[in-house]
């Protein structure tokens, strides 16, 4: 069941100028996206830098004020601070960041870092609180002596685990994870991803996974949104996106993944060049004259693509199973 619904969300940033410092134009960071989030599911938000994916994440947790559109939590508008407070929304939706070190207060000990959300939202005695923190540390696989250490005393992977334990401390429903493993080495990344999957089951969590790494998103996510210039170009299940991409941008993205496939690398390269060519040839079918992405058109129960005319998609009918 979906508990969070985002309708036609827009976040525009003004560009100011002139003698009177008036608004001259806007940056359309997020320009009309809609989606919903079900319990216990993982959603992937993919896009290049500047595509607006992080802005969506920030708007959802309330770090960015939407210009327009609705964010409905169980049908309640939560796009204003006052409204969020009323339904205890900030407790239910937490965020973890790529740059964990700067998201953890360097002058606080781990105990106080994790305790912060608990103190904000729950009335616990000191002993209960400590017990809870120890349980959380145990869940994320950190020893109890971590309690009285400072963030800088840990490695990148450990810090990310502290970040996660802070996020899950108040049993949220949704965690917005903004590039949570991008800065980590492969083996540490695997650790964090496994761990996120494990606590998902335990807490019945939903994730909104923001990333540019298609491998990670593919591994983690049930449903994937591909973003370009503030809008969705294609949305679908893992299979829809990776096995049957329809938008030229998605195709380019999928073709660009450096696969661990030495044997076929020449073929992959040729395909990449072919896709690049297709991209420049068919641009007008997928973007309007201002370069804006068209609205999404439904292809199957789960698969949507942004295109002017559905008829322009070749081979679509055959390839949908």
């Amino acid at each position, binding site marked *: 069941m979906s508990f969070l619904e985002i309708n036609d969300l827009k976040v525009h940033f003004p560009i100011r100028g002139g003698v009177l410092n008036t608004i001259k134009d806007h940056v359309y960071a997020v320009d009309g996206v809609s989606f919903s989030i079900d319990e216990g599911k993982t959603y992937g938000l993919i896009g290049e830098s500047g595509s607006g994916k992080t802005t969506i994440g920030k708007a959802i947790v309330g770090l960015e004020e939407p210009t327009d559109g609705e964010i409905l939590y169980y049908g309640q508008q939560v796009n204003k601070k006052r409204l969020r407070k009323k339904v205890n929304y900030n407790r239910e939706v937490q965020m973890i960041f790529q740059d964990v070190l700067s998201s953890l207060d360097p002058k606080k000990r781990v105990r106080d870092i994790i305790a912060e959300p608990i103190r904000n939202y729950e009335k616990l005695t000191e002993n209960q609180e400590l017990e809870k923190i120890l349980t959380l540390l145990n869940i994320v696989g950190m020893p109890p002596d971590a309690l009285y250490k400072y963030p800088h005393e840990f490695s990148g992977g450990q810090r990310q685990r502290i970040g996660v334990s802070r996020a899950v401390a108040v049993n949220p429903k949704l965690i917005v994870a903004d590039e949570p493993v991008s800065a980590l080495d492969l083996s540490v990344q695997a650790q964090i*991803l*496994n761990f996120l999957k494990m606590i998902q089951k335990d807490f019945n969590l939903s994730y909104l996974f923001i990333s540019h790494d298609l*491998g990670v998103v*593919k591994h983690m996510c049930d449903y994937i949104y591909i973003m370009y210039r503030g809008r969705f170009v294609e949305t679908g299940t893992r299979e829809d996106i*990776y096995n049957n991409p329809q938008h030229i941008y998605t195709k380019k993205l999928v073709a660009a993944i450096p696969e*661990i496939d030495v044997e076929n*690398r020449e073929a992959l390269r040729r395909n990449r*060049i072919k896709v690049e060519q297709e991209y420049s040839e068919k641009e007008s079918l997928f973007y309007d004259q201002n370069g804006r992405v068209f609205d999404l058109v439904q292809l199957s129960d789960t698969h949507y693509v942004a295109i002017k005319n559905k008829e322009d998609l070749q081979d679509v009918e055959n390839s949908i199973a």
Partner: protein
Amino acid sequence: MEDEKILEIKDLHTAFRFQDEYFDAIDDVSLSLYKNEVLAIVGESGCGKSTIANSIVGLHDKNFTKTSGEIIYNGENVLNYSEDQYNKIRGKEIGFIFQDPLASLNPLHKIGIQIEESLIYHTNLNKGQRHERMLQLLDQVGIINPKRIANQFPHQLSGGMRQRVLIAIALSCKPKIIIADEPTTALDVTIQAQILDLLTELQDEINAGIILITHDLGVVAQMSDRVAVMYAGQIVEYAETKELFSNPLHPYTRSLLQSIPQADSVGEELHVIKGMVPSLKNLVREGCRFAPRIPWILESEHEKSPMLNEVSKNHFVRCTCWKNFHFRDDGGY
């Protein structure tokens, strides 16, 4: 691959000073680079892969670094080079491409000037000729409007464009060797593919040998002819790329490959390597350095002082622990 060896590294040790004590950041590294090939050096952060690159052209701060061993280029051991001698090969014979294209360009100089700079020191071209050559280089790296770009500052370009500019700088004197240190890590996937394809294309034109330093096994698989896998300052496996991916032997290589989120990993747990990469200071230098990460493998399986052994033609593996290596199935984190 043509069989002309252009660079040979023998028993290289590079040590850094911490509080009056030197610690080896790389230990007993031997590699060779051939004309027109891509040699990948892959490993996690801190494994020493960038240290190798800096050692080749002497970019370390000499007050804090000690190197020993040999790096043979043109029949000479460049480790004995003076700063002046180094400056004759840097940029001319050996081109460098770095990870962060924005930080790697001087923010206050126009693009054109930054490319022409190496021409000033390495060629006899006059001002007009340098300008011509610069525009030609920009064109060569796929920049559509060289004249306009040459007059812009780094911050005015996109990440991909900047990396093209860095490649143009590296190519400017038609080097015999290009060292690319994580050249695409800071870029978006689609741009990464373009840059890597460009590198391949350019290599065909100038027949340089490329040393590609990366942490991304996908990039290795797509780009390289041979690979050296590094762990804690040592090469643990060294083979042709095809061989390495079809027949990985060292436990570290196998573990890494298992921990990549891939198509077939969906729904499964990723493999996690136990423990942590040791820091330079705490590293135990005796015995197999990977042993603490695979504690279920008996001590007797490891070599006392592990060497890089040739286990099949051109396939080298350090230590003997690979022979009976098996994963533990508790996965875990």
